């Protein structure tokens, strides 16, 4: 196991792209954990100082109320990363397990699981979220992520299932089955590595989607309004600059978008190495 782990890291390290991905990701995580301790964010309005250009005191300039953009991004990163990563994780786990079991087991299990999946695809989210909002107040990011994931796992489950239908009849899986290996083993040891590149992309997209969708939950009143959430920052920037109608606001508008994009890019680059680490044939290619 430790050998495999070292191997894995070596592959990541050798791949320039994925190594840079890891570095950026590490910076983000460092920022989320220690950022708020290193600098304090002052959200007091200083209107005359709005849309300031980047400078030594404001590295990314200021927002529509003259507050430091970078510090807001740093402060927001903890919740945003937690929400993004957890929501994506929940989505992936539920989606993969339901889809894989359904596709692999077939028969009644498949019928039942797909029935539930299809229901989740068709039930409108608005009434449910409104009902939930009336009953509970979400305070921690993990339960927040869970609610987001509830609405996003179903499409993935279907996609995974359709891959399984094809995979399970391949020689190596058939061989496993003949050898009498049990389903959890086959799914985790044989199927999962095969689907990694595909799942990785889905993970990244789910994280991104969750960050954007969290704004929607806040605006329904399901969670307290947080102006430093990156998704909310983008929304506020668009609202205050009209998107493209205020040239002074471009840097402010672009900053959270860039931050989100950078986070996504680091994930994509990292997954690039992941593909090679898990799929040795690609290395020789």
């Amino acid at each position: 196991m430790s050998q495999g782990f070292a191997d894995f890291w070596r592959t990541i390290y050798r791949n320039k792209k994925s190594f840079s991905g890891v570095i950026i990701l590490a910076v983000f995580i460092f920022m989320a954990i220690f950022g708020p301790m290193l600098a304090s964010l002052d959200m007091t309005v200083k209107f005359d100082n709005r849309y300031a250009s980047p400078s030594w005191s404001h590295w990314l300039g200021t927002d529509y109320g003259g507050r430091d953009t970078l510090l807001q991004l740093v402060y927001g990163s903890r919740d945003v990363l937690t929400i993004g990563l957890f929501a994506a994780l929940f989505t992936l786990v539920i989606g993969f397990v339901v889809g894989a079991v359904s596709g692999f087991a077939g028969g009644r299990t498949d019928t039942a699981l797909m029935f539930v999946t299809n229901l989740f695809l068709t039930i409108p989210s608005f009434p449910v979220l409104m009902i939930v909002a009336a009953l509970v107040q979400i305070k921690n990011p993990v339960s927040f992520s869970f609610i987001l994931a509830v609405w996003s796992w179903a499409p993935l489950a279907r996609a995974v299932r359709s891959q399984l239908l094809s995979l399970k009849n391949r020689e190596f899986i058939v061989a496993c089955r003949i050898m009498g290996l049990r389903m959890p083993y086959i799914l985790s040891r044989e199927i999962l590595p095969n689907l990694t590149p595909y799942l990785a992309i889905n993970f990244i997209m789910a994280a991104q989607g969750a960050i954007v969708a969290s704004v929607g939950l806040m605006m329904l009143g399901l969670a307290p309004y947080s102006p430093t959430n990156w998704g909310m920052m983008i929304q506020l920037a668009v609202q205050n600059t009209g998107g493209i109608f205020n040239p002074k606001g471009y840097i402010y508008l672009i900053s959270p978008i860039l931050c989100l994009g950078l986070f996504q890019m680091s994930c994509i680059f990292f997954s690039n190495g992941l593909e090679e680490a898990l799929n040795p044939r690609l290395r020789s290619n």
Partner: protein
Amino acid sequence: MNLLRSGKTWATLALAVFVAAMSGCGASSPGLAARIEAGELQGAQKPVPDDQLKFNKEKIFRVLGGWPKPPLYQGNPFGSGGIGDTNNRYMFEGLYVFIRSTNDVYNVLAESTEDGPGTTTVHLHKGVKWHDGAPFTSKDVWAYYRLNNGADVTKYLSSIETPDDYTVVFRWLDPAPYPELKKLLLAQDLQGQIPYHLYQKYVDKADGLLKQAKPLPDRSKDGPFHLDIPDELNKQIALNWNEFTRSGPAVPVGTGPFKFEKVTTTDMLLSRNPDYWQPDAVNYDKIWIKNVPELSAQYALVKSGKLDWYDGTPPKDILESLLKLNPDLLHYRMYDPASVGLMYNIRRKPFEQVKFRQALTYVFEKSKLREIGNYYGKEYPKISMTGIMPSSLESELSAEALGKMTDYTHNPEKAASLLQEIGWSKGPDGLWRDPGGHVPSFIIGAPNNWVPGVNSAQIAAEQLTRFGIPTKLKAVDSTIYFANADKGLYDMSMDWVDVSWGFQNPWSSLKVVYWDGTKKKVGFPNVKKTGADGSEIDTGRLDLKVAGIDGKTVDVDKEMRRFPYVQEESERKAIIDNLAWIANENCWGVNFFQNVTGAWINTRTMAGNYPMMDQIVQSGRDMPLPETDADRLAVTHLNHGFNSTFMPREYWPR
């Protein structure tokens, strides 16, 4: 790698295009400032003869509006969803029109008015026709009120008589509202909306039902035409109204200068009414209304000069950028009769304590709330919430009353000492603790679709938190927010305060505080009575007895009931002084800032006597709030979509 190359080209092209797009519209004709400096706009302007039209040859007035999209669209303005607020004024008229901000009343369908003892006699213009050709007569005015018997004014009337086709007599109850209020009550309705010949069935039915009701015994209760309408009858009246709203013609029928021509989901076309009774007052052949909900798309339309007139105030920098990009644009500001504000929920502890409410009020720095909520708004740091539009405080209140009002200007020391007075203390962590040693955590609620409210409430929450009272904002879906806030689910709730959307007089804004929206959000108690079975019944009537300006206890509900009938102006002034002082003193809410809204003219396509012409160049086409009455009137006319004038008659195609 073909793709790579094309990708780069595309990016370069996109960038070039973007830069070109943002660098102005390459105006081929001189902008407004250049025209004024060239002396083109000196003296009174006159409509441009047809053969000299250069920029709007088709004589189309292009604006924005909204309406229920087909197949939901129907022609009855009272039907579900209406026909679109802003489109009302082009097609429909009332007896009068009042000008928001001045409360001046002008004749429209009324030619003249006489006030007799207990009556108001209106002589109608002759020769006014509905869009389908039928004449507009006194019967139509009568029909309007018999059918639409929930209209405010019917509470003060005993009957409406029509001695002949062109005379309407409104008979007032005794005592009648004071003269100015009478006028405004009639002027706020659009009486030319229910053509009797189209809706006879429903009007007669409603009239018959009303005739079945007995008069009320006294003036302690209100009813249409002073009638006591039992529940069963009321139900029949409502059902008849419902039938009426469902029966409308497919297209609107009014008396106004423009007739309905066509509607799609995105566009509405109105064309000039050839039979209009004031043919000289119409300068446009068509009105083209676009339905564009997205603000940025609206800005794009404004910027590119695709609209003649636009209503709205974007954030400061967008506004300035639009003016810069299009040299033909001219922007005017005017007061909204409403303020963005916060209300304390006195049903929740510790908000029932006036000192606590006052302490929080001292914490707010209103200039910052305004800068983020709406830069162009105007804050009044001294008041909490008075029930009077802040911009008219000085004219409505006596100097004496104003002098006696508590001054709530930002003062953290004062806030701290008030908190200490009621047993609160500040911990070493900078957080305040209640007398029980507990650190509170409060929620401000705001409707999610109200941008100025959400944005300023967020700053308010931050200011309280910074002061040491942890507070969070909750932006709640607007479909449930108001019901929740009325039930008292939030510690503090956002809404328009000191507001009178109709005519702007203290009576209508005080009604909001003590009887309507503010009352529900603050949570004033109601008079309870014991029912026959011993259960408690909420009468819905305000139960608020507080110390007045002279120290004597005031029954607020009683004062409010008395108000409209007080004929003596000085006595009314005393009531206003007292009720406004009480509201400010008890600090049930905070007026963050009075809203200011804007109107845009595209001077390339629309000509006329632009208000405050001499200030256009020096203000860079971003006009300041008007100072004089004449200017205020002219600017208010620009707000034609709202309850005031039909503007296009004062402007014409260029």
